[in-house]
């Protein structure tokens, strides 16, 4: 496509196509969108983050990432749709306009580009990164067990062949390290949302301990409102709760680390569906999935805007 207006949002795209989309979006909206390279992957691919900003210096910010697990294709596709939605609505949508008047939004669409490329060329069901750390023939680390929050605890594996292999040490994956460095250097991120699929859940810390997070009650209330907003469009039902109690113990996860860094509004989504298609969600469901998720994202972003800390 020659512009993001003719880009096909209800189809899955490979890495090159998504990176082309990013460049188009930046070129079309130079006063709102910029592209940051926050690092390089194991296989030396650039790790791009889109920054949506109306100006200012080091404003409070919202982070959204999609595709840290590469086979969860509806998430990268939704990330593309979110990016276009932000540029389309940033003036006409009062809620979004007011968010962007006070905050920046960072969006990493392909958080695990090596894995994503691999799902397109070699193995559609690849989940992990593509790093090699041990003498084992097995490749890859689960980038959602590699964060320095209860690292190595229950719900992660020390076996390099496991799908939940945590890696040899926290932040061993350049894809994780790049976000850690970015978040620490920025120092003013107020909401952090990491998007996965599938099973229709909205989750908040903790995953590595059954101890409720200090902000448990507030996070639960936000989740309730976000899930209601999401359901208002197509009636899609989302469960919500802490990672530990709603799914299962999972140590070293993204939002546990961000929460422990002081980012109070840390959430994880598990998008459609509940298992009819799983990771092979038909492309016809990309746009509805992104549309309904966007409503929930807006609830979280607006709450972060209205509750500075």
């Amino acid at each position: 496509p020659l512009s993001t207006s003719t880009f096909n949002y209800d189809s899955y795209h490979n890495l090159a196509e998504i990176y082309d989309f990013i460049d188009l979006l930046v070129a079309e909206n130079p006063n709102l969108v910029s592209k940051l390279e926050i690092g390089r992957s194991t296989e030396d691919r650039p790790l791009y983050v889109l920054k949506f900003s109306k100006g200012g210096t080091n404003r409070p910010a919202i982070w959204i990432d999609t595709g840290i697990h590469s086979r969860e294709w509806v998430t990268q596709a939704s990330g593309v749709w979110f990016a276009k939605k932000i540029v389309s609505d940033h003036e006409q949508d009062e809620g979004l306009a007011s968010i962007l008047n006070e905050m920046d939004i960072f969006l990493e669409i392909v958080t695990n580009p090596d894995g994503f490329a691999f799902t397109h060329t070699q193995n559609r069901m690849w989940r992990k990164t593509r790093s090699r750390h041990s003498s084992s023939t097995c490749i890859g680390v689960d980038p959602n067990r590699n964060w320095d929050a209860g690292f190595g605890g229950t719900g992660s594996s020390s076996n390099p062949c496991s799908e939940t292999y945590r890696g040899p040490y926290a932040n061993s994956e350049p894809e994780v390290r790049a976000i850690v460095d970015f978040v620490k250097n920025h120092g003013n991120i107020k909401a952090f949302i990491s998007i996965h699929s599938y099973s229709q859940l909205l989750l908040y810390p903790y995953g590595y301990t059954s101890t409720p997070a200090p902000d448990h009650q507030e996070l639960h209330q936000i989740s309730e409102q976000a899930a209601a907003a999401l359901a208002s469009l197509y009636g899609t039902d989302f469960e919500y709760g802490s990672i530990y109690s709603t799914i299962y113990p999972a140590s070293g996860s993204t939002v546990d680390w961000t929460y422990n860094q002081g980012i109070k509004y840390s959430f994880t989504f598990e998008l459609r569906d509940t298992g009819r298609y799983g990771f092979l969600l038909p492309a016809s469901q990309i746009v509805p999935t992104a549309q309904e998720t966007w409503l929930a994202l807006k609830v979280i972003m607006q709450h972060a805007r209205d509750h500075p800390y």
Partner: protein
Amino acid sequence: TETFVGHQVLRIVPTTHEELQKVQELQDLEDLQLDFWLGPRGPGHPVDVRVPLPSLQPLKVHLESNGISYSVMIKDVQALVDREKKEMLRTRRWL
């Protein structure tokens, strides 16, 4: 390129802690090459597993002999992958 011919996704629903334990044990059986799409959560919660063709029969026998209920969620994983590829190609050609 990895193919998934004959692979199925089974939904296993352990109803007791004993059944859950049996399902959890499956995660350690590397020979079966099971791919857990939804891991074990607790009794009553579904567990989705992609099962390669050679492991289908032994797994089903194992589940049945332990009285653990299951159903087939995706009968042919490769068919869905093929459909997805075809749609992507069609979109590219159209563009």
